[in-house]
């Protein structure tokens, strides 16, 4: 099997996984009671109308009167035609809801990812080059602190101190400021900081441990002996092999945080991003929106895993793609 075929097979499988997961979500949603229908019935009862009728009407309005397989087929067709439905919770098309919330999620996710991916390996490498120095211990301590402190807890504390007591950063997230402005930087600094502390620790540890394996490897010694500058030795000879196992950790860590902590960080800092939309839509049982956002998260997850696998294969020639 060649690389091309391997990737094709991998992509096809990724799509299948995404599809299965979304179907499961659909099933779960179909099984849970819809609060809006209930609400309509209660309301009708209080006003002297027939609640049964109101219930039927509410179900019909939301397309819930159709049998489940019809709804499922409609939904699947919708996914491919990009007709993802109407969000009753936000009164806008689901695609629009996702795009607009993704806009806010991206504003903190991109700086966070870039910072993590650049600082993490560098500090790790530095630690490993200066093993058991006080700097190494400080970096290790910070790494453990970072991935042990619960993100939301850390966020609340920082917001309390810097937002409410010191008033250095605004308490309310303002959506009306320009993306590249000082105000935006000020209101995003805490969420980005919290997320970076959370994700960088693992990467620092892995890159430190992995690179220490190569620090004294024969090929590095050879390179040094040949007069390769230390910087070049680090970048080419140590970082590259380190990146192989590191890429796994990185993708895994970032994905985990993206799907989990980003929601909590958005809640704590009132950022109207994707995580919050997902959570709110689950609570409001806004079926189309839940499915839409889930699809996005699954997509990101699946693509992340896919990229990880492919990078792995490409970066490390020792791994054959025949096995998997």
């Amino acid at each position: 099997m060649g690389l091309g075929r391997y990737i094709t097979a991998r992509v096809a499988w990724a799509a299948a996984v995404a599809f299965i997961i979304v179907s499961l979500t659909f099933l779960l949603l179909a099984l849970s009671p819809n609060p809006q229908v209930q609400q309509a019935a209660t309301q009708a009862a209080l006003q002297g109308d027939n609640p049964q009728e109101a219930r039927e009407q509410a179900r019909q309005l939301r397309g819930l009167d159709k049998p489940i397989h019809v709804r499922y087929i409609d939904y699947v067709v919708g996914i491919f035609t990009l007709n993802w439905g109407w969000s009753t919770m936000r009164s806008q098309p689901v695609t629009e809801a996702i795009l607009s919330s993704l806009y806010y999620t991206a504003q903190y996710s991109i700086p966070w990812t870039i910072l993590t991916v650049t600082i993490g390996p560098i500090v790790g490498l530095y630690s490993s080059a200066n093993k058991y120095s006080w700097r190494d211990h400080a970096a290790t301590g910070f790494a453990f602190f970072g991935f042990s402190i619960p993100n939301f807890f850390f966020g609340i504390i920082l917001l309390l101190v810097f937002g409410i007591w010191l008033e250095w950063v605004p308490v309310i997230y303002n959506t009306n400021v320009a993306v590249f402005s000082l105000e935006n930087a000020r209101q995003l600094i805490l969420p980005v900081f919290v997320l970076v502390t959370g994700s960088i620790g693992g990467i620092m540890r892995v890159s430190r441990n992995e690179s220490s394996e190569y620090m004294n490897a024969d090929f590095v010694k050879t390179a040094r002996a040949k007069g390769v500058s230390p910087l070049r030795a680090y970048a080419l000879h140590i970082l590259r092999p380190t990146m192989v196992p590191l890429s796994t950790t990185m993708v895994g860590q970032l994905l985990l945080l993206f799907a989990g902590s980003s929601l909590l960080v958005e809640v704590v800092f009132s950022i109207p991003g994707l995580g919050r939309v997902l959570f709110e839509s689950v609570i409001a049982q806004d079926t189309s929106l839940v499915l839409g956002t889930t699809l996005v998260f699954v997509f990101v997850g699946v693509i992340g895993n896919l990229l990880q696998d492919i990078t792995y294969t490409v970066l490390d020639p020792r791994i054959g793609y025949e096995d998997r």
Partner: protein
Amino acid sequence: MPTEDRAWMESSDEAPRYIRRRQWLKALGVAGIAGFAGCQGDGDGGTETAADTPTDTPTESGTDTGTDTQDFGETATESTPVNQLPEPSGTYDTVTSAAYTTLNPLYNTEAGAGDAIGFALDGGYTFDDQQEYFPLLYDMSTDNGQVWVFEVREGLEFSDPYGEVTAESFTYQIQELHQTDWAGTADSASWGSGVNVEQTGTYEFQAELPSTNILYPESFDPLLYPVPKDLVQPYVEEQDAEGLRQDEELLELQFTGNLGAFVLDEWNRGSGTTYTRNDDYYIQNIDEGPDLFEGAPYFEGASTSVVQEQSSRLGALETGEADVASIPPTRFQEFDEKESVNVLQIPQPYNEIISVNMRDNGWNAGPGNLFRHIPFRQAMAAAINKQNLIDGVFQGLAAPHYTWQPRWSRFYPEGADLSTFGSGDQYGSDYARGLAEDAFEMSEHDYAFDGDTMVNPDGDQVALTLYHSAGQETERLESEFAAQELNNNLGMNVQVEAIDGTRFDNEYWSNNPVEPGTTATVNGEEYTWNAPSPNNGGPRSATSNQAWDMSMVFGLNTFPRNPLTNQFFFDGPNSFYNPVGYYPEFNAPELFQQAREATSVEEVERAFAEIFVNVAREQPYIMLAFPDGLTGYNPDLVGPIENFSNGWNFPAWRFEEG
């Protein structure tokens, strides 16, 4: 969270503090439905969204005859005639806990969104600080209480190209949307087919009710938002409810012309709304109201921000990022002492109650159902100390709840011999036990006290479950307090359990209705159920899917402005809302009949005085407290008053100069 909170819709937890139209659901205090908000919530029963923006109008009121002693709060002090109108300055920034579902005035059912709509679009009328009808878009009058004439103000304009607001803007809306089956608008129930609407002039139309109702405006049924006929006509012709619901112009309030104090600039679904001042606001030219209306509004803009964390909302209020936010009782005193915040405390008609299941699947502590015996419900009410509950859970910021009406209502039976269970000598272990023993006598089963514990015929302690909504911290505190009191004073073992509001509603609260026309005997009376529904499924044998004993999940509105609505709760088989299976043992149907047919407010009062004395005695729900609404304002803001109608004169609100 649920919840609440969840809950995240926060919400709902927040029992709304200002009654608004279309607030039925909120009126139920439905804790978990919108969510857990609580969950996210805020669980402290704070007063969040509802109170945050004053632009919408309060509902239900006792009207006109100003002869009564009713205290809806302080009144606006009319400042000395203004020589010079203040200049508009600043923006009026509010925070709320929950994002809006829709801003389409035809479909909105949420209080928070009602506020957001209210900035850009006035409703038909409101009630002023004297609780008098105050016409905004139209005036209402009647000779006999059955035919009501609506006079639409002249000079009201929609945005181009929709032209002037006329009587037709309203009649078309009523007849083609509210009174049809396809549209399913939020107001459809207010305009049932029994209401006969007719246009009688360019600026005049009338509504003929099926029966007299002298408190018609107070019911808020006739409150309308104007919508251009040309805008909705295409949807009417197609009967396209989905299109109407999703119409961009309606959702983004692009048709509001001179009909609101502000113009909506942007509705960011996740984070709130922003507005700019409407220079042509019609209210500048009206004769009624304070002179200050002439230059209204006095803010250059307005905004609402969705902030879920309660501590962040309060932080924003404190730092001046927000001009108004509701305050939870635990922070009341602290904020009251702050220079940077002006806190108002406004009594509310939403109650905190324990519902006890009198249906066949209630009382799972042994044979029989003691909840059905009045003395037993009295014993429970007498076992829970209302003042301690109020002090402990609401930091004293609530009023005790003895009967189905707050004390400040004109319909409260002042001076009558009212039972006050849970206060004074009607509180205490011995007193409650005495009542419980009366109930044991009435029961055919052998319940008794064994030392300090209440035991069932098998000799085991009576053990019951009390549900509250998950994520609602206040509710949980109340539930646990009640459980402790019932344990200490009546020797009952009460387990407190959290449950999601929607699930509770579906599985526990909603009955499985019987066939219409079923008859059965309750308390020796023969009753017929003509329209059984999940909220009143029929005789006590019509039960929910799951058995339950007691619940604090839902609180209810007591309708102090229009108490007639309370027949929904206490009219036995005919009640629209009787999930617990309560059948009055006083002559409720006749008294409600009297009240309905009354031709003067005094007559209504007489009938209700008797009803409320009986309700206090029978404790259909174990009544506990009326928490106050607490709202913090920017101290520079001139206008907010501690009145049930706070916000009625919002156009005159302004920032003090300097």
